[in-house]
């Protein structure tokens, strides 16, 4: 080993340690920022170390890429609103996927003939997974952004086709190991990765996005691992494994929070939702449509209030209005807590970030298990754009597609105020019994406007 190689290798070891410490910092909000600095230092060391690599003969393309990427990255992170975080994450998974896939192609073009069988297999996986993550994440981004229909897009034979493509790709990787010179096979693997990414995400509905985003995170990590195996780079294997296990863990947590198995999310694809789910007709059922004044009166008479935010809060950017309502209530001596469901919103932790942005103290945010017993003792619950996570059908109705999903016992509280755009059951088509309950008041309209009007009510009307 030359002295340069020693420095180069040691820089990677140090970077790996720093990355693990960075993730460890995330175990609490106080230590998280300090941890992140360690991660940044680790990345800097790894990049500088790499520039010493003997295979690097020219720096023009490198500098151009670093510069362009940094400018774009800076611009995105400075301007993107917190409500668009799921879109940002989806987009960054696609960049990550594309980067690994292109590295795979470049590696194949450079030294296909000199690779061992194992490395060739890793290269095949890298390219396949990289392109899969790329298109899959673009599709997820499209669904979140709304230029691809958010509802599940399904057709007959879909799963057969997906599984076929997947098995075909595995076979192609096998063939490539035996015949590394067959460029057509390599291109077929790349093409099939692109296709599987599109096909796998098309049938998945918006409410399943937290699982999909976590899974794509995991694939991006696996692709990076495969790169590490193909290039014999331990730092890539380590980082890929960290990324992959984080994605896997999050997808398991998300699936559990929806009481669905992985297989069900991926292949079942809410297919059941296309059939009319429950026989309860929408029309003719009576619900209490309430005015802002009515809701204000209920809140004025309450001592304890729990806020349940959902994706609707993100859509109408109502997090600041929610915080203001809570502040107005607190000034009246009311105790306000927030109930955060693991799959509320479109990605893990989505609601937490939005409320943190609105300056809500994080010790008022409670997980499902920590707050669910409190609803029975609560005077009023304000549901802001949440639907499935407060649907009692998940507990009672075994024919419901969301049956078995752990939900908040919102219906047990004395009164429920639901802020919702309209009485539409939403794209999943699942009826929500809660909306028709005696003690539920439906305040229809844009959540943000309604909240602001409610704050006005609280301010003027004495006590």
């Amino acid at each position, binding site marked *: 080993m030359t002295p340069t190689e020693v420095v180069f290798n040691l820089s990677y070891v140090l970077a790996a340690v720093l990355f693990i410490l960075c993730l460890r910092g995330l175990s609490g909000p106080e230590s998280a920022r300090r941890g992140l600095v360690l991660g940044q230092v680790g990345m800097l060391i790894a990049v500088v170390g790499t520039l010493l690599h003997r295979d690097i003969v020219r720096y023009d393309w490198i500098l151009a890429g670093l510069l362009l990427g940094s400018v774009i990255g800076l611009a995105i992170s400075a301007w993107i609103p917190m409500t668009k975080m799921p879109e*940002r994450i989806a987009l960054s998974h696609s960049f990550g996927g594309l980067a690994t896939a292109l590295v795979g192609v470049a590696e194949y073009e450079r030294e296909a003939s000199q690779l061992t069988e194992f490395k060739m297999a890793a290269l095949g996986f890298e390219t396949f997974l990289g392109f899969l993550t790329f298109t899959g994440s673009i599709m997820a981004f499209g669904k979140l952004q709304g230029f691809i229909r958010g509802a599940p897009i399904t057709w007959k034979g879909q799963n057969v086709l997906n599984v076929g493509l997947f098995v075909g790709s595995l076979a192609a990787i096998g063939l490539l190991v035996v015949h590394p010179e067959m460029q057509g096979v390599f291109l077929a693997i790349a093409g099939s990765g692109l296709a599987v990414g599109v096909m796998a995400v098309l049938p998945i509905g918006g409410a399943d996005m937290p699982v999909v985003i976590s899974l794509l995170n995991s694939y991006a990590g696996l692709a990076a691992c495969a790169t590490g195996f193909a290039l014999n780079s331990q730092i890539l294997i380590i980082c890929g494994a960290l990324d992959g*296990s*984080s994605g896997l863990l999050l997808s398991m947590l998300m699936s559990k929070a929806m009481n669905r198995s992985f297989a069900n999310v991926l292949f079942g694809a809410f297919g059941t939702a296309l059939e009319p789910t429950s026989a309860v007709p929408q029309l003719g059922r009576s619900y209490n449509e309430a005015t802002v004044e009515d809701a204000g009166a209920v809140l004025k008479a309450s001592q304890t209030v729990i806020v349940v935010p959902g994706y609707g809060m993100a859509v109408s950017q109502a997090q600041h209005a929610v915080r203001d309502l809570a502040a107005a209530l607190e000034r009246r001596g009311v105790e306000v807590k927030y109930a955060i469901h693991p799959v509320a919103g479109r990605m893990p932790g989505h609601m937490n970030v939005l409320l943190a942005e609105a300056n809500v103290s994080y010790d008022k945010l409670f997980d499902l298990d920590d707050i669910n017993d409190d609803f029975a003792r609560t005077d009023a619950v304000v549901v802001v754009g949440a639907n499935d996570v407060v649907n009692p059908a998940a507990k009672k109705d075994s024919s419901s597609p969301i049956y078995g999903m752990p939900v908040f016992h919102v219906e047990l509280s004395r009164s429920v105020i639901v802020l919702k755009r309209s009485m539409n059951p939403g794209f999943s088509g699942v009826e929500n019994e809660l909306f028709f309950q005696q003690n539920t008041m439906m305040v229809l309209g844009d959540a943000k406007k309604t909240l602001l009007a409610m704050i006005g009510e609280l301010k003027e009307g004495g006590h």
Partner: protein
Amino acid sequence: MSGEWVFNLYVFVLATFVGYQVIARVPPLLHTPLMSGTNAISGISLVASLIAAGSHHQLSQILGFVAVTCASINVVGGFLITDRMLRMFRKKPAVSEATAPVRKAQTS
């Protein structure tokens, strides 16, 4: 065939194990920063992209250039946005004023 891949497999298994243990301790509160943080870290594919972009092979240089761009978007953007998020997670005094963000840290 060398024992290289066995060694790498060890690295992979151990890193997955460590990753799982460390990440299992991250509270749901911080799941979004976790995702964008690991995203930034997996931007380490930047090092592989650098080697592709800096090689003498022409196609590899171009592909590498695109890869370097994508990976550095993730590294720079990922770290910055994670920091932006983490800065927001603060414990605040019980009753905060409706408008101006409260800077004072709570001691209790």
